[in-house]
């Protein structure tokens, strides 16, 4: 038998044991964003015809929660294990680098999807959302969480200290998330910023996800899917290459 199921289970137990901090807290954060931005901007920002700003905002916030929590799960688990040294318990058994990656990735995806699902569930009675293409919703949620889970593995391997991880989060993840169209449709942006947004992979994740709800999007969902799938493939390959080489794990 393989060590993969146990490692996945351990990663799930790890965040579930502190669910207040890893699930409840980010759900509350998303709700606060929703309340504040909806209150401040409802009726002032033009989005899609016939779609209220609050309804437009909500899928963006859900996806943002999925992405941030997927990243947080794999990156913080890895760096904690490295710093405390208990990663050695995973390096001594016959676990392949592929199994290692798959376990961290799957746990990160589960955490992202649990948080995103909870945000949706909690807001469902308050903000009615259409569900034009459920398969796209699910597909983009899966791919988005996988991308950030893989990125979390890379960042967790790379970082030697919590500060470095925090810097990665604050200077890479946060700007990319906030400039991705969570809070607005990029069509409302000046041309320059609109063009720049097209280089932000997060934009495609959120745009594609939103398409699943409204059946409308800034770019074609097929194009978004292609970009997002390519991103995932590239990051997964990079993470696997690092793990395979033993980067910062096997000296």
């Amino acid at each position, binding site marked *: 038998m393989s*060590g993969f199921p*146990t*490692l996945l289970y351990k990663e799930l137990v790890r965040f579930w044991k502190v669910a207040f901090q890893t699930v409840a807290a980010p759900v509350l954060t998303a709700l606060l964003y929703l309340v504040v931005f909806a209150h401040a901007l409802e009726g002032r920002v033009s989005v899609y015809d016939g779609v209220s700003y609050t309804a437009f905002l909500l899928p963006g916030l859900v996806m943002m929660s999925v992405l941030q929590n997927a990243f947080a799960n794999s990156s913080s688990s890895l760096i904690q294990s490295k710093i405390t040294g*208990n990663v050695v*318990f995973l390096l001594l058994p016959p676990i392949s680098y592929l199994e290692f990656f798959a376990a961290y990735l799957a746990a990160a995806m589960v955490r992202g999807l649990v948080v995103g699902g909870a945000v949706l569930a909690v807001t469902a009675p308050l903000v009615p959302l259409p569900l034009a293409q459920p398969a796209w919703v699910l597909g983009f949620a899966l791919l988005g969480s996988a991308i950030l889970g893989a990125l979390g593995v890379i960042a967790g391997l790379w970082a030697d200290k919590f500060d470095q991880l925090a810097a990665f989060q604050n200077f890479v993840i946060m700007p990319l998330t906030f400039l991705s169209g969570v809070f607005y449709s990029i069509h409302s942006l000046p041309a320059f910023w609109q063009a720049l947004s097209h280089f932000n992979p997060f934009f495609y994740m959120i745009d594609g996800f939103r398409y699943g709800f409204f059946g409308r999007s800034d770019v074609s969902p097929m194009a978004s899917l292609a970009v997002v799938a390519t991103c995932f493939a590239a990051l997964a390959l990079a993470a696997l290459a690092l793990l395979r080489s033993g980067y910062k794990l*096997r*000296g």
Partner: protein
Amino acid sequence: MTAAVEIRQVAKRYGALQALADVSFEIAEGEFFGLLGPNGAGKTTLISVIAGLVRADAGTVRVLGADVVADYRRARRLLGVVPQELVFDPFFSVRETLRFQSGYFGLRGNDAWIDEIMHYLDLTAKADTNMRALSGGMKRRVLVAQALVHRPRVIVLDEPTAGVDVELRQGLWQFVRRLNRDGHTIVLTTHYLEEAEQLCARIAMLKAGRVVTLDSTRNLLDTFSGLQLKLSVDRFALPVVDGVSVLASQGERFTVRLRDYVALEALLHSLREAGAEIREFELAPPDLEEVFLRVMRGGEAAEAERGALA
């Protein structure tokens, strides 16, 4: 017969530091083997190479025939390692820790064995205690238990008794001896040389990444150590006797090395002939500390001294 551990021309460099240089030796199955050397000699690095935690720059290591890189799955199943650092996962209890470790080796339904290990390591009462709440000594025992969950045939312990109190140490050694009697190969590094002397049948000494001595404990003690005698007599010089060399003297007190008991007899005989009166007399048996110090002082100096003795 396949060696329990076969190390061939292993080298490892950290920047400018040669942590291991051309290390080659074999450990037979069923042996109780000691790996000694001062801090920084490369013991942990060598163990890490055996465990696949560190990749050697050159050379190969096999555990019961399984190459630790090419056939790592088999090698790791055969090997149990107790790391030097006192690491633990603060999220889990003792039992959870051991169950997870079992699972990483692909084992399910291993609870009977886990209970048995906990019993022998006196961990049963703490089974459901969180790792954070354990004392250092108890954490060390959990590390030992973790290394055993998959019933490895070769067990490597990297300074398992560092910072562990005497009672615990005794208990741990009893347990490890039992494992060895049951046929497990034991590889041990320790700072307590008396322990190595009592436990290990064969010893390799490492210095600056090289094996400087490798022999049975008995031979090491015979060749390098000899008997040490402290005596004080009513004169300022001792008669010259074959097989006796003075290591230190202070007035009428002398510390001398005796090649063997024949040399002791000869010394006493010539003292009697000279009419010397012996006031104090203290004979120390050979000990590994002495061997260790002499080996570490440098192989050549020790050889020269041995030549002088003969």
